[in-house]
Structure formats: C-alpha cells, structure tokens
C-alpha cells in the first residue's frame, strides 16, 4: 500500500500530487530544497547529484509521513531503481584519470561511482539498519518496479519500503519518483 509519493524533475517538485513552489532549477533547486526543508545536514554538500536528489526526495517524503525521525530501525528498506546507475559520478571520475599528464584520481569522487551510495546516505541519515539495494533496468518500467518492491517484503523483518525511481545523468537531467510503501 503506497502511503506517500514525491516527484522531482529539474523544474518540478510535487508531494502527494501537490506542487511545491520553488525558484531555482536543476541541481541548484536541490540545494534550495535542502535549505528550505532540511538545513541541518552539511554532508549534503559533499554528495553527488544522484545522492542529493535521493536525499532531498527522501526528506520530503519523510516530512509528509510525519512519524518520529531518527529512531534506529531495521524494518524499513531503501530500494531504488534507475537506468543510468552512477553515470554522472563515473563521468566526473573518468575526467580525473583521462589524461596521463594530468592524472589526479580522487577518492571523494570515486566513492560516488556506485549507485547504491545514495541508499547508504539515507540509511545513515535516518539510522535505518534494514535492507538497502539498488537495481538498474534498461528503461523505466513501473510494472517491474512494482514487482520488485513487493518482493522486498519477503524479507522477514521488512514492513515498509522507501523506494522507487531515482535517475540522474547530469546536474540538469534527473528524475525522482519515490514512494513510501507499507506491507499489506
């Protein structure tokens, strides 16, 4: 059963179907949303765009859930899907090693070259010790996503999933469509 839904593109934000007013677009909008609705988590500024997107979307979703925050729990899973994995971070890291004459591989850039890092960022923020997972599909496919999200409840402890579509190819091209789903 889907409880809440957040939708974010570079120029549109909605929570449970209600449009959220904002001034900026693209990655700057994610920072604007962070300042307006979060504000107390400076680690946000270290994140790549995929993680920023997932972080902001999950914060808006959890605000609308309205439950007590930051209580350690193992019964909530975080499971995202996308098409591009960590392509933006991969491209950024590749740039640091492309030129043998100007070779400066950065660990801070390399760590984001895994799509599941965003699930870890959300687990850390919320003290979620439950399942975290990232699944890549050739294209967005709501039917497969629904099937896979239902399967997550086959874990003996999982009673809710924060999950859905979370794709980013660069600072101006991204889409989050994430849900809070309760075990039926």
């Amino acid at each position: 059963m889907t409880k809440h839904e957040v939708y974010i593109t570079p120029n549109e934000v909605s929570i449970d179907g209600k449009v959220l007013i904002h001034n900026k677009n693209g990655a700057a909008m994610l920072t604007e949303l962070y300042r307006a609705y979060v504000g107390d988590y400076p680690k946000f500024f270290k994140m790549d765009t995929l993680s920023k997107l997932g972080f902001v979307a999950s914060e808006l979703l959890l605000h609308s859930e309205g439950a007590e925050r930051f209580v350690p729990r193992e019964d909530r899973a975080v499971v995202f899907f996308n098409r591009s994995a960590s392509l933006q971070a991969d491209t950024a890291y590749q740039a640091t090693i492309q030129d043998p004459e100007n070779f400066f591989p950065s660990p801070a850039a390399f760590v984001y070259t895994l799509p599941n890092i965003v699930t870890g960022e959300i687990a850390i923020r919320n003290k979620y010790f439950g399942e975290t997972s990232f699944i890549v599909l050739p294209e967005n496919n709501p039917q497969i996503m629904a099937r896979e999200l239902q399967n997550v409840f086959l874990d003996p402890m999982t009673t809710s999933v924060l999950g859905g579509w979370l794709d980013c190819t660069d600072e101006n091209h991204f889409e989050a469509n994430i849900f809070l789903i309760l075990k039926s």
Partner: protein
Amino acid sequence: MGGKPMIVRVSDNIISPLGMTTAENYVAVKAGRSELKRHDGLWQLPEPFTASLMNREAVNEKAAQLQIDDRYTFFEKMIILSAAKALEQTDIDPTSDSVLFILSTTKGNVFLLDKNETGFPRERVLLGYAAKQMTDYFHNPNTPIVVSNACISGVCAQIQAMRELESGRFDYVVTVGADVQSAFIVSGFQSFKALSVDCCKPFDANRTGLNLGDAAATLIYTRKDEVNENDWVACRGAIRNDANHISGPSRTGEGSYRALKVALGDTNPDKIAFINAHGTATLYNDEMESFAIERAGLSCVPVNGLKGYYGHTMGAAGILESILSMQAIDDHNILATRGYETIGVMHPLVLSNQNQPTEKRAFIKLLSGFGGCNAALLFAKGGEA
C-alpha cells in the same frame, strides 16, 4: 518448512584466470593456485598493482566458438560465456518467459567512458544495456534485472533470485555476476589506498589491503517442493546496512551482524561447516567481520576467505565464492585461506591456511561493501536438517 518451496541450484559456472569451468576452478583453488600477479605500467597506470587478470585472447577464442563475436565487449563476452556454460548443463529453454536473467555487476562496461575507446556505442556503458546484450543473445523475452550494490551485489542477486522464484512469477533464474578490471577501477581503489602491492593476506596481522580480479560466475536456481540429499538449497538471506559511513565499515559490524543473524535463523551454529567471509584483507573490513561473527555467536564456526586466489572480483565475488563453497562441501573440505599466516583481528576466529576436512553440510556466505551494505546467505546441502 511449512510447505514453503525450496530454492535449489540447477547448475553453475565460473570463468576466471584459474579456469573456464567450475571444476577447473575448484581443483586449482584446492591445490592452492592463484594467478595474482604484479602488473607494472599496465593501462598506463603510474603505480604498479597486483591483480588476477584474464587472458583476453583465451576468452575471445572460447567465445567465438559460440558466435559470441567482436560485436560484444570483453565484459559482455564474459557474462554470455559464463551463462551459456551454465545453461548447457541443463535442459532449460532460455527463450521461455518463465526464465529470468539477473546480472550482478558494479562497473560493467565502464571502460567505454575512456575517450580513446571508440569501438562500441557509448550507451553500452549503461548496465541495463550490457545485460540486454546477454538476454538478446539467448533470445530471452524478459527484461534483465541488474543488481548494483557495490561489493555485495553477488549475494544480493541470489537473494533477488530466491524472491523471484518464491513469488512464483518465474521457474528459473539465471544469476550471473561479473566485473572486469580497468584503469578506472584500479586507479579508484589506489586513490583510496585500499590496494596491496603484494598478494593480499586476508585476516593476517600483516595485511595491507586488497587485490582486484577479473571473473564471471553463474548460478541457475529453480523452485522445488521436495529436495534430495544432494540438492544445494539457498535457505535464507538478508541485506542490512551499517547506517554508519559510506566508505568505511561499521566498527561494531552492525550490518554484517544483523545480516548474519537473519541468515542463521534457528539453525544451530554446530551444523555450519564454515563462514565464507568477504575477507578483502583491508585493515577495517577483516576487523569488522571478526566482530560481526563474534556478535552473531558464531566464533566457534571456521571462517575462510578466497580473495588470496582471485583477488576481489567485485560483482562476481558473491556468486563465485558461493559456488566454490558448495564444491568444497561436496568434497568434504574447508578451503584454505590463501595468504593468511597469523591472526590479525581482535575478535578470535577459527582460520587456517590449510584445507581442513568437514562432514557438515551447510555454510554461510558473507559480504560487505561501500554504501555501508552487508549481505549474508545460508546454504544447506539437502535442505536444512
């Protein structure tokens, strides 16, 4: 079992520098062999590194015999070849819509991001597109699922396979795990200071880091209501997060401990032959695992690690190491931890650099990775006693 169907191995394959079949790999590992070698100047990298790398010509040759030609990248050849070799031992029809393919990989065709690589369409860097090369090769009608959960992907993919079968939507799941090394991956781990320049020493007092390796491995699963005593059953698995740090393991082994607890369930630790650990030979990983194993009440269960034979094969590791652990139990053997000499973790573990006999029929595969993720999966031959 409450009438719950059991998830049973149908067939498997490993393609690695130690061989092109599961049997070749097991014989090599049992004999203590490894292809971990020092590479200096490879891929124009400024620093040397030790890795277990495939002979690419040998893969091309084997692949060509199955019409897996140069339309495919080296990574795609590896996954298709491994899946083909696992499928050829069965009567499964891969064109059926009751067969699902799951791919476990972290970086797939990432080498295509290099501006000097022009032989393939750039979209093949997308993991779903690389996986689609495999399903198209087999004329499989289903959309492939790619699990990309850093170093735990291979166990996650198997847990995913179990769920797809339990929910009844599919009759067979072909679970393929692979990664191939490149300047991208090696330089990244070097920047983290995570690599050892020498052969890695899992759980050893003098361990200095991990080695990387190429491999592809496949496990095909199905669902059965009744199993016979030689069937390998994937019993219970769990994925848990440390909720601590994105690039360092929890000092208290929070996620691994919790994953182990769920995987163990009501099983008596006395029934378990060994825990096949992640054992990357980094300072923090091995220390963390020792704590998690102790907290889960499993200190008395022997532990081994296989990174000393293959290096860290990333997306392949969870599948490759599960297959070899099944082979070992079939052979009444606990494989030696190659590279280990003196205990170097604070929480005591039962470890050996020699093969050890066992008559037990169950084991736990344990993994952990970046993003704070951890996974554990209990396997039992003939099902849980």
